[in-house]
């Protein structure tokens, strides 16, 4: 009870403009900038205590296990270190010189770049078209939504195991081609370096496109129907409405999806590691920065080197993320914290 007055001022303060909102303004007797009541001091200490207790555990866990390891990596990256005892063999930037002069690392960089671009180019347009189609009021929409999301819910290990059995030379895909009379198209889907990256792209698209569709559908449902109704009354055709009204309003969702997709492409590990393993991946042309890191670091006992690769990955991801946020996401992300829900 003691801070119920303070409560109101706080609530009032949260809408900075101070415009009376419809129906909500009646309680605000004093203008937002008015001096606070006398209980302010105790209320403030109490609030500080609550904030500390409520945010403390999450922040500590987050800093300790997400942020701190990245700092650790930067430290260990300067050492040649096998992971036992304290690191003593300081090598300066030598690990980084080795990384950037290793042709295998150049390979993984280009693989990651290919995966990044192809993921956007393949999944984006297909998912938008599918979302537009499925956004109509058709029967069985719920069932369709569940079914197209299935690949996303299944773990990478299962997807990898299933697809590698299907794609192996004596697997179901080649068997199916044989059965329908297209035996000439049989191929070594996983081991042929010209084909393997495309097989990977098929698997990635298959696994993640459902997520894009669901995300876009969610975004489409946030667009008021009145807009397209009004346009329809004005004589706009279905495709005109989609192109002029729906797609621009879907923009923020598409940009967030692209961001998630880019980050995911840079971090890709599970599928490649499960299907190809660390050795075959590099000969088949599907190795990524992450499989390189695990293969050259932990699996060969070179923890110093592995950490240096982690730092390189981190810097590349951060740079791309920041550039993307700065130039593309900025207008979308300004809202959530600065504005109260409209």
């Amino acid at each position, binding site marked *: 009870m003691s801070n119920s007055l303070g409560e109101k001022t706080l609530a009032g303060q949260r809408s900075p403009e101070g415009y009376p909102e419809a129906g909500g303004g009646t309680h605000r007797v004093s203008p937002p900038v008015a001096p606070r009541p006398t209980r302010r001091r105790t209320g403030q200490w109490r609030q500080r205590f609550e904030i500390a207790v409520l945010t403390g555990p999450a922040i500590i866990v987050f800093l300790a296990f997400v942020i701190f390891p990245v700092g650790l990596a930067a430290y260990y990256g300067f050492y040649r270190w096998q992971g036992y005892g304290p690191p003593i063999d300081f090598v300066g930037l030598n690990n980084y010189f080795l990384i950037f002069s290793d042709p295998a690392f150049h390979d993984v960089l280009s693989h990651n770049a290919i995966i990044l671009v192809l993921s956007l180019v393949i999944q984006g347009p297909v998912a938008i078209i599918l979302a537009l189609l499925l956004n109509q009021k058709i029967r069985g929409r719920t069932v*369709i939504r569940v079914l*197209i999301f299935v690949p996303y819910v299944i773990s990478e*290990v299962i997807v990898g*195991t299933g697809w590698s*059995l299907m794609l192996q030379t004596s697997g*179901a895909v*080649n*068997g199916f081609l044989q059965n329908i009379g297209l035996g000439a198209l049989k191929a070594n889907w996983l081991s042929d370096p010209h084909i393997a990256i495309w097989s990977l792209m098929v698997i990635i698209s298959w696994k993640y496109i459902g997520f894009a569709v669901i995300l876009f559908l969610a975004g489409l449902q946030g667009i008021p129907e009145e807009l397209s109704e009004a346009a329809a009354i004005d004589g706009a055709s279905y495709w005109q409405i989609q192109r002029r009204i729906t797609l621009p309003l879907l923009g923020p*969702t598409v940009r967030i999806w692209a961001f998630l997709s880019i980050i995911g492409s840079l971090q890709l590990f599970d599928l490649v590691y499960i299907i190809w393993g660390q050795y075959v991946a590099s000969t088949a042309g599907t190795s990524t920065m992450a499989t390189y890191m695990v293969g050259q670091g932990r699996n060969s006992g070179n923890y110093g080197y592995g950490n240096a690769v982690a730092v390189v990955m981190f810097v590349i991801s951060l740079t791309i993320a920041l550039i993307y946020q700065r130039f593309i996401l900025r207008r979308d992300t300004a809202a959530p914290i600065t504005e109260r829900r409209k």
Partner: protein
Amino acid sequence: MMSTSTLTIDGAAGPRPRRSINWSHPLTYFIALVFIAVSLAPVLYIVLGGFRTNSQITVDPAGLPSPWNVGNYIDVLTGSTFWQEVGNSTIAGVSTTVGVVVLGLMVSFVLARYNFRGRGAIYALFAAGLMFPITVAITPLYILVKDLGLVNSLAGVIIPQIAFALPTTVIILVPFLKAIPDEIEEAAAIDGASRIGFLVRMVVPLAIPGIITVGILAFIGSWNSYILPLFILSDQGNYTLPLGVQAFSSQYSVDTAKVLAFTSLSMLPALAFFTVFQRRIVGGLTGAVKG
């Protein structure tokens, strides 16, 4: 929707949208069916493959079971490996979910409903966490977990998973908690509830849809996670299902049918969870996207 159709009938351009809808529906169904078929074919391959024998698979890799054979599934279900790994995955999944929901709800409540300096900074800290999936931190994280003596224990998987699931949780929950009208908070305060009382008695029940969303996402994330258990868990007795699937498929690499049976059984729980709660997940994504 009723109003739409009446409007279009009345409007000058009425016939056109109506016709385009009539034309496009069969096409929509067709495309949806093709898409669903493509989505489900590999899953069906795994499930049906489990009902075949190895000789059937060798003779015709893309065929259907004939005759159907439940032996592989029975072998897996009566063995101890599968159930032990289900148990480990369940412990890891439930603990991660509870931890994420409790910690995430506490911090999101403060970010959504308290006004203080540093609020934006804390939000930005968690939002930045979205950019760093576990892969980039795994090598040093492994060393950290090893130094804490948690290697080869489920706790060593659970705690980092909580930390890495917090960003998504905060991003989804904050808009949810902001949407609770101030009037409810004021009414609770007038009735004598403290901020914490308001959190426990009003916010938690009102935020149940959001809590379920983040809970399910955390659970499925934990159930499916691979790289962290791969680094942390070395003893087969501690394996979670993804590690188990991989170990099983290399151990029985010649017994394809059994591998397929094991694989399809291990994807059931996540699928069942998702099917039951799909509305919540999609709803939660809508909230997150709209911000």
